[in-house]
Structures are given as structure tokens and as C-alpha cells.
């Protein structure tokens, strides 16, 4: 097990450097003048351009810039935005909110998606199965921003049940509706995935053996069936938590949530390269960590993997 973990950890290093370099290059090396349009309808004064060029090392070539960036990153300095805010501070303010939102979304996904999947997977064809099929198809075909805006306008502006935007530092309650919007797509996928997986394993030999041994039904389903069926779902949930951090871009934009997604949303809008790079680097770390955890969980759930 320890060798397995070590190997997985070592694999993270080249992936980290590769992805962060790509991000840095993509964000900073976009063709065109980074100062065009920064000063409104008139051109930026040369003095301002000089100051900023020096501050962001724009005169160096890209590789040198990247290593200067990494250097300060390792000392805990995420850099500064054009308007002088510390990116580290921005991320520090934003990540707890996004984490809360992602948790709400994952919870909604897992609870509703898994329940619907298990129920339909066990029962097979029938009214419930059709209902889940139709509703998940509907959810999958809706882009997240449509779901979010419809929920916002209907529940917020029209009925006044929720606030149309979320406060600066929202609690879990305020995040339920944005969480539904954010998690709806994955919820549908999870329901589908679980259903297929359960339906497949339902007739497996080990289940029949368990039933034949006279195990109670709850144990057969809960331990034998679910443990094996949940592996593909877990992969999905794990990477989804990473995706939720980034996928929240749209949802956080719509509900004006001050999280990481909102930070990228604004960063891209205002062409704040430092913010975008910083947040995306963080998201890469989250992805890497999540896939590591998922892989380790695999090994726990299915011993065959760790002996590989």
C-alpha cells in the first residue's frame, strides 16, 4: 500500500509542473497588448505601462517569467492584481465560500442522485424508472446557467422566496438554491451511473450467494451490492468536486457569490491575469489531490487494485 501511495505521489510532480506551465503560458502569452483597454477610451500613459511591465516581469521571456512566478508561489506569494490586491488574500477570502458551496452541491448530488439510482436500479422498469429517466434527461440537457437564472428569477424575483443574490459571506442555508443549480447536472449523471451499476451487479454471482446464505436484504444491498457498485460513482464524485470548484464559475457569477468561481469569472472579464493564474493553479492542486484521494479509496474498496 505504501509503495502504491508513494508512486501516486511522485506522479503528481510532473503533472503539477506541466499543468501550471501551460496555464501560465496560456494566460500570459495571449497575443496582444495587456494594457489595451485598461485605461478606457484613451491609451494608457507610458509611465503606467512601464511601472506595470516592471511589476509583472513582462519584459522577461515566458520561461523566466514562469520560474519567477513559481519562485514567489513557493514562498507563499500568489502575486498581485493590477489594482494592487494580493491574490493570496483574494483566494483566502474566496475558498471557504466555494468549499461550502461545493459541499452543498456534492451533498445534494450524492443524496438525491444515489437514492434515485439505487431505487431505480433495484426495481428495474416501471413508473419510477421512467420518471427518473425523463427528469435526468431534462436536467442533463439544460446548461447550468439556464438552471441558475431560472431558479434565480422564479424563486427570487417572482416569488421572493430566496434572495436573488447571496450575501458577502453566506451560510449553508443561502447556498442551497445555488447548490441545486450547480449540482443538478452531476446529480443526473450520478443517478444514471448508479442505476446502471446496480442493475448490472444485481444479478452477479456474489449477490446471489449472499442472498442464498440468508443475509438480510439491507445488508446485501448496503454492503455487498453498494460497495462494488459505488466505485465508478466515486470516481465521478471525486473529480466532480474539482469540477465543482471550477464549474462554479457560472453559478457563482449568477448568484454573485464571492467564491473562487466568481474570482475567475471576474478575472477573465477584467483580464486580471494574475488572479486567473492563481486560482487555476489552486484548482489544479485540488484536482490532483482529489484524484489521489479517489485512487486511494479505490485501493481501500477493491483490494485487487492495491496488489497490482
Amino acid at each position: 500500500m505504501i509503495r502504491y501511495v508513494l508512486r501516486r505521489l511522485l506522479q503528481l510532480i510532473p503533472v503539477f509542473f506541466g499543468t501550471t506551465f501551460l496555464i501560465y503560458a496560456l494566460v500570459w502569452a495571449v497575443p496582444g497588448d495587456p494594457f489595451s483597454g485598461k485605461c478606457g477610451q484613451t491609451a494608457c500613459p507610458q509611465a503606467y505601462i512601464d511601472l506595470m511591465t516592471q511589476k509583472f516581469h513582462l519584459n522577461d521571456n515566458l520561461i523566466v517569467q514562469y520560474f519567477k512566478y513559481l519562485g514567489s508561489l513557493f514562498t507563499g506569494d500568489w502575486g498581485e492584481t493590477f489594482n494592487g490586491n494580493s491574490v493570496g488574500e483574494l483566494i483566502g477570502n474566496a475558498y471557504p465560500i466555494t468549499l461550502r458551496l461545493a459541499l452543498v452541491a456534492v451533498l445534494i448530488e450524492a443524496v438525491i442522485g444515489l437514492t434515485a439510482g439505487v431505487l431505480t436500479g433495484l426495481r428495474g422498469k416501471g413508473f419510477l424508472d421512467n420518471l427518473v429517466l425523463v427528469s435526468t434527461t431534462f436536467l442533463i440537457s439544460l446548461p447550468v446557467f439556464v438552471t441558475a437564472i431560472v431558479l434565480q428569477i422564479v424563486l427570487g424575483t417572482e416569488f421572493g422566496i430566496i434572495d436573488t443574490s447571496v450575501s458577502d459571506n453566506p451560510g449553508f442555508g443561502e447556498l442551497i438554491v445555488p447548490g441545486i443549480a450547480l449540482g443538478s447536472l452531476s446529480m443526473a449523471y450520478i443517478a444514471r451511473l448508479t442505476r446502471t451499476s446496480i442493475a448490472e451487479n444485481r444479478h452477479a454471482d456474489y449477490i446471489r450467494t449472499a442472498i442464498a446464505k440468508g443475509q438480510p436484504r439491507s445488508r446485501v444491498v448496503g454492503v455487498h451490492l453498494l460497495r462494488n457498485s459505488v466505485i465508478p460513482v466515486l470516481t465521478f464524485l471525486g473529480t466532480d468536486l474539482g469540477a465543482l470548484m471550477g464549474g462554479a464559475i457560472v453559478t457563482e457569477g449568477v448568484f454573485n457569490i464571492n467564491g473562487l468561481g466568481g474570482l475567475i469569472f471576474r478575472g477573465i472579464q477584467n483580464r486580471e491575469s494574475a488572479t486567473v493564474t492563481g486560482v487555476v493553479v489552486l484548482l489544479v492542486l485540488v484536482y490532483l489531490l482529489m484524484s489521489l484521494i479517489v485512487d486511494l479509496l479505490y485501493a481501500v474498496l477493491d483490494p485487487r487494485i492495491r496488489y497490482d
Partner: protein
Amino acid sequence: MEWNMRRSRRLWGAAAVVTTLSLVLTACGGGSGSSGSSGEVDPNGTFTVYGTEPQNTLIPTNTNELGGSKAVDAMFAELVAFKGDNAQPYNQMAESITTPDSKVYDIKIKQGWKFHDGTEVKAKNFVDAWNYGAYAPNGQINTDFFSNIQGYSDVHPDDKAAKPTTDKMSGLVVKGDYEFQVTLNAPFSVFETKIGYTAFAPLPDAFFKDPKAFAEHPIGNGPMKFVSRTPNADIKLTRFDDYQGQDKVKFKDLDIKIYASQETAYQDLLSNKLDFIETLPPSALAGSKYKSDLKDNLVTGHLLGISTIAIPYYVPGYNNLDLRKAISMAIDRTQITKTVMNDTYVPADGYISQGIPGYRPGVCEFCKFDPAQAKQLFAQSGFKGKLTIASNADGGRKEPLVAACNSIKNVLGVECDFVPATDFGQWRSIVTGHKLTGMGRSDWSADYPSIEDFLNPIYKTGASSNDSTYSNPAVDKLLEQADATPDKDAAVKIYQQAEDLIAKDLPSIPVWDEKGVAAKSKHTKTVVLDFRRRADYSSVEVTK
């Protein structure tokens, strides 16, 4: 907390409605409010406005966009201020501004004004602030505004590589605690109006001791003082009770709430969570939906700005006066402003925004829609090929220009295409790099309300925003003459002559002039939209 406050405000609102209703029923109704809100004015209320993240540090010399100036303008008071409703300049911190020749200005400031940290505002605070703004190594965004003060080239050499020889401009001399003298490079009669611009605010001594700390907690001399700022979330200001100016505010707290999307802010406004938004999102403008959404809560103003379609001289084939006239007369401005722009703009007929002293209707005689003459002029021009209009396509810029293109196409029978740029940044780099291959959008909004600000920066040879490379020595001469004319009315007349010449050359085609539509919540009793698309805070009254 926020939530509770809102709720109690809602209750108060209901109570207030009942009270007013009974007042009306007993025929006690007195004053007529310009807006539909009712209820008692709350001097300790909070006014929440839509905001965007400031693009630079919150220092007057480094703020030139709407997001930052919403906060900076409330925190600082300049020598001259502009009235919210008609943009009339008046002396604010200035006791008197006198000049014998429009070149040397003697400025006396009022006594007893205080910065928010309790120190008194003195003449040297202005001089130091202006020197700081002009000094090249400080890299301030508004540095160009100081360029006509004598000695600017010493602190800010044109040559990028040259080091400034000093950090003080010779044209600024402190003559006492409350008096200083400004000497300009050349006579400039509009200077008195120009110093009402944000960049000319004074800075306290604390700023020069530690600019970095100041940027985090700015100290101004304006009607509101800084409380706190959370990046991407909000900027909070509160009333400065020692404020001496006449533009005092009638509410207590100003909460600039930063939104990622206008659409969300608009939804918040409709549900009364936000009190003011100065611009409406495209979805609300579509089909004039905003009129039914807002009813009494619609606020209209008149922005001092103008939209034109520039016809760059460097594009082959376009340097042709008949073609310019034909294009201009083929655009049905009335129709487009009404249908495509949903009444948020009015047709333009000159190079100066309506509402500026010196504006005359019908200056641009070729701005009338006249299909027959347009066709004839187009035939005369002998132009072959395709016309294009380029612009950034976001923010509702595309639709009116596509409509203009169609209007040209229908009248002249020539192909016309809209060429999109992805965003404002890319668009600006095309314009400033002189890479246009046809016509292009060219919008201008005034930094200060003067006819001069609509001509000098755009139409003078080699001027900072003369992106069409227009050059007419006669125009240059008139503009210089007007700048040097001390008598304001006489100067305006000469600026008008320059405008007449420009209108004959048609370096750009005036198309429309933005009215400015804003929206307020029902908690806001009155609010005026000023010429710079900001809520005039001194006009704001919020109800309980």
C-alpha cells in the same frame, strides 16, 4: 445583520406607505416628489449602489473608470465641482480662481476644510498631489491631465528612457497656507473647469508618508469617508460629519456592492436588495422591458458623451468626402435609436454632446437622413467595394451598428458588414494600432463638462485620442486660439467655429447621444444620474 436591516426596512416601508396614504386621503399632500416613492426620508439610512471592482488603487490620480470613481469621488472634493443635474461648474474648495491671461492662475482655497484624519486641507496638499500625479515613476493613470502645467516635461519626460530631472513642476508655487499659483505652458481658458476632474483632488500628508498604507485606507476631504473594502465584495463609506461643502449627503452609509454580472444586480434591484444601478443590462433593454419592470423607479439623465462612427484617413478609398457624406446621410438615426436602442439614445447632430454650453442643434448638416441625396453623393464618390463597421461586439455595442450598416446597405445598395472584435481590450488595440480596415465605432464621454473636451483630444492633429489621424491646420489654429482666449463666451464661439470646420470634413460621423437610463429601488426617494453616469450622491434621499 444585513438581512435583518433589510427586513426592518421593508416593514418601515409598509408603515410609511400606510402613513402617506392616510395623509393623501385627508388631503394633506404638499410637495410633489419627482419620483413615485413615498415614505419618510431617513437621514441615517444606507444607500446601496451597484459597483464593479476598481481597476486601480483608490487614489484620485490613479482612478479614471466608473468602478473606482464611484468611491473616490465621494471621498474627495476638488477645487471645482459640477452640479449633478446640469453639470454646471461651481467653486467647491476654491475660494476664488483668478487669472489675468488664462496662463497664470491664482487659486485661493477655503479655510477650515478638513481631511478625514482631522488635518486641515492646505494649498500645499493640492500642489503635492498634483506633483505626485505628474511624476513619471509613480506611473499614475491620470498623469496626462497635468501635462499643460509648466514644468511637466521635467517630471515626466516624453522620452521613455530619460530620467526626470526633478519631482516638482515649476508651474506650481505655494504662496501661503490657503493660496497657490499655477502657471501653464500656454494659455488655456478651460483650466478652471478642468480642475473639477477627479485627478485634481488634494492628498493629505499621510499619503506621502506611506502611499501603500493609504491605498488600503484612503483618507480624503470629501462628503464621505472610507470604512472598509473587501475586494470583489464591497466598498463601504460613511458620512463625514465635518464636511463643509454644499454637496453634503442626506443619508449615512454608502455601500458599493460589487457584482460579477449586471443581470444579477438588476434582479437584486427589482427585489429591492440594491438601491441604484446606473446602467441596465441588455436583457432589460430588449423590447423596452425595463419600462414595465421599473415604472416609477426608472431614472433618466443626460450623459455628456457622444457616439460616432470614425472613418480613418489611413484606410484606402475612405478619404473621400462624397463617400463620407453619403454614408452619413444613409443612416436613419431616428429609427435606430427608437427601435434598436429602445429609446436610451437620441440622434446626434453635431460633435458635441447636447447639454454642454456651446452645443448648437444641426451643426452637422450631413447628419440628416436623406436617401435620395445619399444615393447621388455615393454615385459621385465612385467608391467600389464593400463598407465595414468594426467594434467590440459585447455590451450591446453590436446591434445598433449592425442596424446602421443595414441602413447604409438599403439606401446606397452597397455591401456593408459589421466586423466584431472579441472584447474592449482587443478593440482598443486595433484602434490605437491603426489597424482598422474600414469604419469603426468611436465613442467619447466627457471627463469634465466643456466643449473643449469634445474637440481637442479627438480632432487636433496628433492629439491623444485622434485615432482617425484627422488633421486640418485651420482646425488646429482655431482650437489653439480658443484655448488662449480668456473670455469664456468668446472662447466657446471660437470652439464652435472649429466644430463647423470639422463638420465639413466629417472625420467621423456623429450618430447618437446617450440619454443614460438608470434604475433605483423603491427605498430611494430621489436620485439624480450625473453626466458621468454616476449617482449624484448629494441628491440621494432614502426612505425608512
